[in-house]
């Protein structure tokens, strides 16, 4: 299993009406790597993430996950295979408690019929353990999410994905509108997820955000892959140059 990459995309295309969001894209996500997906606005990063997470079906091309050909018809299906997505602002419901958020959509239950009853003891215990493991201090998992900072929320979202056994973590601009200190909290969590065996696709348009923790970069421009770079081969300034010019330049 380890010889085939975790994700393999072959000539993937997706259009929305007249707009070709992705054109014949082929790339891979290796086991246990953090891949930075870079590109300017409208490069097709989000479309690619939505294909991987099962939000959009693909028009053309082949998608392999763990060596098996897949074609997700819903996010639920992708999740079942171990693909979890954390969106920039859409991670936790502010007005609800931390534990209710943590298990939303996958609530543990003690009783099934006629109506599914929550296992509230397990929810509180497991959530407390997971949140503390992430290093976020809360008085109680019953507290509202609004007491958490943006960074803590993202960290909890990532911790949540790992709790549910994510093999592939898709992070869509996870640092949008976070402070420097909070960025560190989130990066710690991404590293931890990676150390525990998950692969991460890290989407951003800010190279400096991703550079410290990413292993490899894929750069998109208007739906086309224009570069695939090992981090050790290139400085962030050169990568920015590629994104800005829209083409691979000789370093």
């Amino acid at each position, binding site marked *: 299993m380890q010889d085939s990459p975790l994700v393999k995309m072959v000539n993937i295309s997706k259009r929305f009406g007249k707009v070709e969001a992705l054109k014949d894209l082929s790339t891979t996500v290796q086991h246990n790597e953090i891949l930075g997906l870079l590109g300017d606005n409208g490069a097709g990063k989000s479309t690619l993430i939505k294909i991987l997470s099962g939000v959009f079906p693909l028009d053309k091309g082949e998608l392999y996950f763990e060596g098996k050909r897949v074609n997700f018809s819903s996010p639920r299906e992708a999740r079942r295979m171990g693909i979890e*997505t954390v969106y920039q602002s859409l991670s936790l419901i502010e007005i609800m408690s931390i534990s209710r958020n943590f298990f939303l959509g996958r609530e543990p239950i003690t009783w099934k019929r006629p109506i599914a009853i929550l296992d509230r003891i397990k929810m509180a215990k497991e959530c407390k353990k997971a949140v503390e493991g992430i290093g976020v201090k809360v008085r109680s998992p019953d507290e509202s999410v609004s007491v958490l900072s943006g960074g803590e929320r993202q960290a909890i979202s990532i911790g949540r994905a790992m709790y549910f056994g994510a093999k592939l973590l898709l992070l869509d601009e996870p640092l949008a509108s976070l402070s420097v200190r909070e960025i560190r909290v989130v990066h710690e969590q991404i590293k931890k997820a990676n150390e525990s065996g998950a692969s991460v696709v890290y989407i951003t348009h800010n190279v400096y955000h991703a550079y410290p923790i990413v292993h490899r970069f894929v750069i998109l421009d208007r739906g086309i892959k224009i570069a695939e770079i090992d981090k050790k081969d290139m400085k962030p300034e050169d990568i920015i140059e590629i994104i800005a010019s829209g083409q691979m330049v000789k370093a």
Partner: protein
Amino acid sequence: MEIEKEKRSLLDFFSGIRVTVSKYPALGALIAFSAIFVTFSVIAPKFLTLRSLTGIFTLVSELGIITIGEAFLMISGEFDLSVGGVYALGGALFVVLANSLPSFLAFIITLGVAAFIGYVNGMITLRGGIPSFITTLGTMMITRGILLVATGGFSLTYKGDNFVPTILSKLIGRGFRPSHIWFIALALLFSFVLTRTRYGNWVFASGGNKEIARMKGVNTDSVKLRNFIISAVMAAIAGCMAISRFKFANVAFGTGYELEAIAAVVIGGTSLFGGYGTILGAALGAFLIGMIRIGLVLAGVPGYFYKALVGAVLITAALINIRMRHTST
């Protein structure tokens, strides 16, 4: 050093209170309830008698059952302005059907028709993309209109059997009625569903943030649609209860009940935007409104003051609720 420590523990104490308050949104309603209860006990001599208290209970049970359904729907992020219309139309339909069918069958059919109205409210709102405020404002007018056209404005007298009226609202003695038990049972049931079940978690999530809930795999449309149906069915149950008590249906029945129900829900601490609230609070809100209505009469205050006082309580409660929620963050 010591002072610092003391300050700390005092701070912890107060933030502890705030957490408690934010965990129990009904607390504000409970405080207001107690205050008004004590006030009326003092200023209205007959207020603290079993007779007036059970009288309040009867009124509150009918309004309260509507309020429970409305609260459930509002927590999931939608409104229902048609509950007053469904209450009246449901009651009238029950009279017409029970006059020629067994009352139990009439009751079931009435609830089925109400469920259909709730379904229509939900489908128009969710598929048509119209705010539920508008959809249900429309169905409120439509249900009232149908009632007017069908009855020509005349009252309908109940001549059916006594089965359903007995179960719903026959006087047991000392002013107690089955409707009181139904109200408490439904409040406990829905409170349980909201706080202890997976569906309840989805109700909160649908109102808290539809997009995130969807992303996490919750079918928010299905949750909301079901809650629209629940709201309409509860209104029809309350309508049949009132009919069982009065034995006639009137076109003007339940006029303004939609606003009283929403007021009760808000007084009870539920967020107008959804995602937050309790059934217990909504039930207390309904009690508050019933108490004001009857307490004012007993205190010898002209009935005209009723609406004004409910309005004042509504605004005060909303202000207190929002303050508590902000300080708890």
